[in-house]
């Protein structure tokens, strides 16, 4: 029965796939979930799959979620495997998040500021009481949200020179999907890796910095969520045209810094940016980004989150799940050699007694 039955692997695989298909579908008497239902009602799962799958397409992410029986990492894997087949036609212009149509914008460092605090559709202040109502209460009709200019909170601090200035580079950013990771990695590549890294891993690492393993004195300067226009410059036109919008979450972390030989005491930055509405991912990303800047800022590198090589090598959950789960593949050849070795060692040890 088990797969170790030397032959018959082909039939076993076919039978397993049939069983999987039946399990995925569940009771045929229950209606199948549509892709629209998933994009409409499981939006946060779709956002996470797009981020970790590194492809902004709500419908494909929903499709992947259904196919993966709701397993987020499996769904992200499906999306990545599809993404790799797509031709790269053109690079977009950098998106400008200061022009974001923010549905949510909060700052933890000022009680109020120009543009105001806007909670948006957040669970932050809900009481987590399991709701036993069969049907969700229909949403009250909401007044339309007026897009208001919202200057970046970090620019307000920057005006007083209390916050380090961000260096703007014209160099094309690195791309992990086109060139392999090299250590040491520039901040562009580190941020790309984090943006598509495993949310649980980022969360755990970010949390570890808060508990003393590479502390960074963080404050959320600003967290904003909303649509940003994506534009491209087609070579035949020579000017930018908008091709669509993506929903992004951006976190600007402000961290205390004691200064160094070359820099006065000031606040430093940690940055998080990701697809969809994902506060947790953006905040964790900003914590880990700042932690990985320890060496650059002359801080001691002692904790896991500060070790860029450690973080970057282990944050990708498609790589990680593959290698962790591969342990269930047949390893009996290696194990046979281990058996022989341990028996020989045992004989030697027994002989010494």
């Amino acid at each position, binding site marked *: 029965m088990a797969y170790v039955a030397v032959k018959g692997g082909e039939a076993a695989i076919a039978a397993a796939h049939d069983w999987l298909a039946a399990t995925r579908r569940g009771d045929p008497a229950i209606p199948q979930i549509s892709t629209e239902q998933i994009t409409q009602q499981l939006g946060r799962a779709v956002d996470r799959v797009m981020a970790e799958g590194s492809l902004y397409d709500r419908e494909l992410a929903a499709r992947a979620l259904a196919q993966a029986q709701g397993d987020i990492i499996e769904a992200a894997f499906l999306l990545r495997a599809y993404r790799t087949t797509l031709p790269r036609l053109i690079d977009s212009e950098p998106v400008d998040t200061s022009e974001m149509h923010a549905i949510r914008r909060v700052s933890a460092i*000022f*009680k*109020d*500021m*120009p543009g105001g605090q806007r*909670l948006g559709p957040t669970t*932050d*202040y809900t*009481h*987590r*009481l399991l709701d036993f109502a069969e049907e969700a209460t229909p949403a009250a009709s909401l007044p339309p949200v007026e897009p208001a200019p919202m*200057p970046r*909170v970090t*620019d*307000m601090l920057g*005006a*007083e020179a209390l916050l380090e200035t961000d260096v703007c580079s014209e160099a094309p950013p690195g791309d992990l999907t086109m060139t392999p990771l090299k250590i040491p990695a520039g901040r562009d590549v580190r941020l790309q890796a984090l943006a598509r890294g495993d949310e649980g891993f980022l969360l755990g690492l970010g949390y570890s910095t*808060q*508990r*003393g*393993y590479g*502390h960074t004195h963080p404050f959320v300067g600003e967290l904003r969520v909303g649509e940003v226009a994506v534009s491209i410059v087609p070579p035949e036109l020579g000017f930018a045209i908008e091709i669509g919008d993506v929903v992004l979450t951006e976190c600007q972390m402000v961290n*205390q810094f*004691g*200064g160094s030989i070359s820099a006065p*005491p000031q606040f430093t930055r940690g940055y998080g940016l990701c697809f969809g509405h994902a506060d947790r991912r953006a905040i964790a990303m900003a914590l880990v980004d700042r932690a990985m800047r320890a060496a650059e800022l002359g801080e001691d590198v002692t*904790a896991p989150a500060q070790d860029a090589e450690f973080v970057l090598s282990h944050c990708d959950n498609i790589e990680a799940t593959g290698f962790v789960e591969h342990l269930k593949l047949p390893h009996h050849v290696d194990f046979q050699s281990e058996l022989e070795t341990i028996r020989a060692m045992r004989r030697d040890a027994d002989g010494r007694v």
Partner: protein
Amino acid sequence: MDGYNFAYLDEQTKRMIRRAILKAVAIPGHQIPFAGREMPLPYGWGTGGIQVTAAIIGPDDVLKVIDQGADDTTNAVSIRRFFARTAGVRTTTKTAEASVIQTRHRIPETPLRADQIIVYQVPMPEPLYKLEPSRAAAKRRHALADYGEMHVKLYEDITRFGRVAVAYDHPVMVNERYLMSPSPIPAFDNPKMHMMPALQLFGAGREKRIYAVPPFTEVKSLDFEDHPFHPGRAEQKCALCGGTKSYLDEIVIDDQGGRMFACSDTDYCESRRA
């Protein structure tokens, strides 16, 4: 609320928390582990404070909840509603009227009385965690009252910056024995803890620790004879009540660098304007 006990937690849980509180009161400043429960608000929102409040509150109590000194901040509103809903207790924004005050990051400006209890929400109960991340190792330092590292850290601040670079959560010695985190209150508030007539309880839900400062207990902010502790505040006066002695929030009013300063303690500010 239907289907839930008074103040959400069941009575066995409350009894467990009260036992931890009694131990904490008996050993001022010492962190007592307790079997913190999952609460319907996330860790980091004040689950420790909420559990302590739930364990001590009675139907006749009057509850005030502040966050950053203010009754109207989102999290304070949420927690106040939680107790109004689950315990049906009377709530207030007036410091003097409250019998239990739950707070995040401030101590009210109005001095507290012996018939009041203040419950602090604590994110990191371990004052040594930035110097010694292992809680097992930190526990040993507490047992031996070995706090040299913290003094060295403050000394290094003074040699590098000419001052102690700790603006909030400035560590305190309680009853000349235990080093304690005052929770992330501004250093400005630290002196209020010293010989306070009210019972001070501290709850850390995620880290599962409770500690306490009994009434009229000595609380000393760490410092040096030649660099005495300095509780700081913005030098401005409150734009609303004109106060010069209260802790102030800095509010950005335009993107040209315009600023306004106002009392963080909204009740104090309103009572001065009334």
